[in-house]
């Protein structure tokens, strides 16, 4: 049973560019959340998608946007990249009404130069 799949694994972008990260949730999961993790810090919640709608959003600017598709996969888009956007971006999936935690992917390492 495949877990959460994220692509690409690594990415280097220039300041001001735009980036799209992709996530396929674990089979059977219907909810996708995105987190940003800086070095030495815990992950920070960006937003969560369920039924193709953004359910909740963390304290991130509008430059961060997302989308969930009918097959539950999701994309994270970041516009006008800043050096401070360099981080590990994690996707997590879950099932509404579950009695357990989230399944995380291995992340996409984004470097902005």
């Amino acid at each position, binding site marked *: 049973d495949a877990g*959460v799949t994220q692509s690409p694994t690594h990415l280097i972008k220039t300041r001001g560019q735009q980036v799209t990260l992709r996530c396929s949730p674990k089979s059977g999961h219907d909810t996708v*959340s995105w*987190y940003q993790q800086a070095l*030495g*810090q*815990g*992950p*920070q*919640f960006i937003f*969560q998608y369920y039924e193709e709608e953004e*359910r*909740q959003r*963390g304290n991130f600017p509008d430059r961060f946007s997302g989308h969930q598709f009918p097959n539950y996969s999701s994309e994270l888009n970041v516009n006008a990249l800043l050096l401070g956007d360099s981080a590990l971006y*994690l996707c*997590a999936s879950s099932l509404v009404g579950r*009695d*357990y*935690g*989230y*399944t*995380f*992917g*291995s*992340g996409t*390492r984004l470097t902005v130069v």
Partner: protein
Amino acid sequence: SQKIEQNSEALNIQEGKTATLTCNYTNYSPAYLQWYRQDPGRGPVFLLLIRENEKEKRKERLKVTFDTTLKQSLFHITASQPADSATYLCAQEDTGRRALTFGSGTRLQVQP
């Protein structure tokens, strides 16, 4: 806003001993507390979830407690092994279950 605090200093213990990691939270008591393990360059892996009305949860060599009076959760690994060396993250989740708030994690190093 809610804050989750973990000891940022690394914890070094000898193989076979019990490792105890601490997670403190401010303000209100979260509906759920979760513990994750994270290895370098990898995503967090879910270990245990404990609800606000539960005092203790066990899974194999792992045990987590939840003290709403002290606003604290303790995570224990008994008979620790070098393979248990990793960063352990504590996270809280509200009733709506839409977002995790993580602590910064505690690095555990188990010496053979």
